[in-house]
């Protein structure tokens, strides 16, 4: 029963949903402030969710079963990741061998859910968004995994998240070393792409392809997708903190580090133009992968 409580309430669905929606509000408010506007009130994302639940759902001509199922696939997997990362910070000793690999696989599933759902909507603009999303996933997964390989090497070759956290509690944060710092910068850029934020949001480009991947979604299905994106905004910085910056995991320190990472992501989002998909591919497979390889080599040399 404890597992069900963890999955559904804390730190699973309810907790990560609420914190994710508030993190999305922080995003909108900081964006507004940077543009010298006032911005929406704190309950705006909750009201948006309620309003979307009350709207009519339209099913497209394509495959209706996949269209209905895709948002829930994304939501289930991101809730699992939120539960694993939440329990990791509560008690690092309870993690199992290989849970780092499980989290990496589960974090790809939201992108796959978006691809499935947009393909099932049989809209040509959505298919452009799908092809861009697939290329983007190929682009950022490679340096992301190389950055995580740096962490694995530095934490005395373990693939257990709990052991990575306890290694940092005893020996200082991984981003204190040169290889760790380079890998952290690579990981922040890959996080920006995974969250689908400018400069890497070519798949949901609003002005270009009219909401791209989400063009046919309406009503509660759109609400589930937006909730999934908000929960991703909550989980990804926490995952990065657990890998690179877990020297002090008290609640205040975690909150401070999380807000700092969030503000970095939002400021990069507000000061960058959007990259074309081929520019994004060249960016991730060129300079960023080279940086990640340098980080791995430095970690192997012991720095």
């Amino acid at each position, binding site marked *: 029963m404890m597992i069900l409580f963890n999955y559904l309430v804390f730190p699973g669905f309810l907790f990560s949903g609420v914190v994710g929606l508030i993190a999305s509000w922080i995003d909108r408010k900081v964006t507004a402030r940077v543009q010298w506007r*006032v911005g*929406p*009130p704190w309950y*705006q994302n909750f009201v948006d969710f309620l*309003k979307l639940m*009350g709207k009519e759902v*339209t099913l497209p001509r394509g495959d209706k079963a996949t269209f209905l199922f895709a948002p829930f696939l994304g939501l289930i997997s991101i809730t699992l990741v939120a539960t694993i990362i939440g329990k990791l910070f509560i008690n690092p000793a309870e993690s199992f061998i290989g849970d780092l690999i499980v989290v990496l696989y589960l974090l790809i599933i939201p992108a796959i859910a978006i691809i499935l759902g947009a393909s099932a909507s049989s809209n040509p603009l959505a298919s452009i968004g799908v092809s861009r999303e697939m290329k983007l996933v190929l682009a950022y997964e490679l340096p992301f995994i190389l950055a995580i390989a740096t962490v694995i090497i530095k934490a005395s070759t373990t693939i257990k998240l709990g052991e990575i956290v306890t290694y940092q509690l005893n020996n200082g944060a991984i981003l204190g070393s040169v290889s760790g710092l380079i890998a952290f910068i690579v990981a922040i850029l890959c996080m920006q792409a995974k969250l689908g934020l400018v400069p890497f949001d070519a798949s949901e480009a609003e002005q270009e392809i009219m909401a791209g991947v989400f063009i046919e*979604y*309406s009503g509660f299905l759109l609400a589930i997708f937006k909730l999934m994106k908000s929960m991703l905004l909550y989980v990804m910085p926490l995952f990065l903190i657990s890998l690179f910056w877990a020297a002090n995991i008290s609640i205040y320190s975690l909150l401070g580090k999380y807000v700092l990472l969030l503000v970095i992501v939002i400021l990069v989002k507000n000061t960058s133009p959007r990259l074309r998909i081929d520019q994004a591919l060249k960016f991730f497979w060129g300079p960023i992968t080279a940086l990640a390889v340098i980080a791995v080599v430095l970690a192997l040399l012991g720095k």
Partner: protein
Amino acid sequence: MSLKLKALTKSLWVFHLCVGGSCNNCDIEILDLLTPRYDVERFGIMLVGSIRHADMLLVTGSLTYKAAARAKRLYEQMPKPGIVVAVGSCALGRGIFKDGYNTPCPLDELIPVDVYIPGCPPKPEAMIAGIVKLVEKFRGGK
């Protein structure tokens, strides 16, 4: 007022549609609403790219033959409950193009319009006043 309508009035997502013959002045004034001076995002109003995400269809320009079929289809694609707002005297009743060769009928003979905002072009304050009247109408009795 039910919870559904209350949430709708606090979070209106707008799809901007310019039918056919328009000088784009109303479109520029609508864009002004999103700039820091008037900033309608603090009321929850957001511009969306897809008609399936929209609650409000903001129509400018006078209706033309080519755009008529498309405007009707867009109205049917908007998920209900939805609101149609006609901005500018061209959208109200074809304005100065009333006797034109390519304007078949006023907009509200094609799709049901809820809010009319007159002006050529209407000032952003007039548009905000129109939205406030709409919210008052919802609170009053629907």
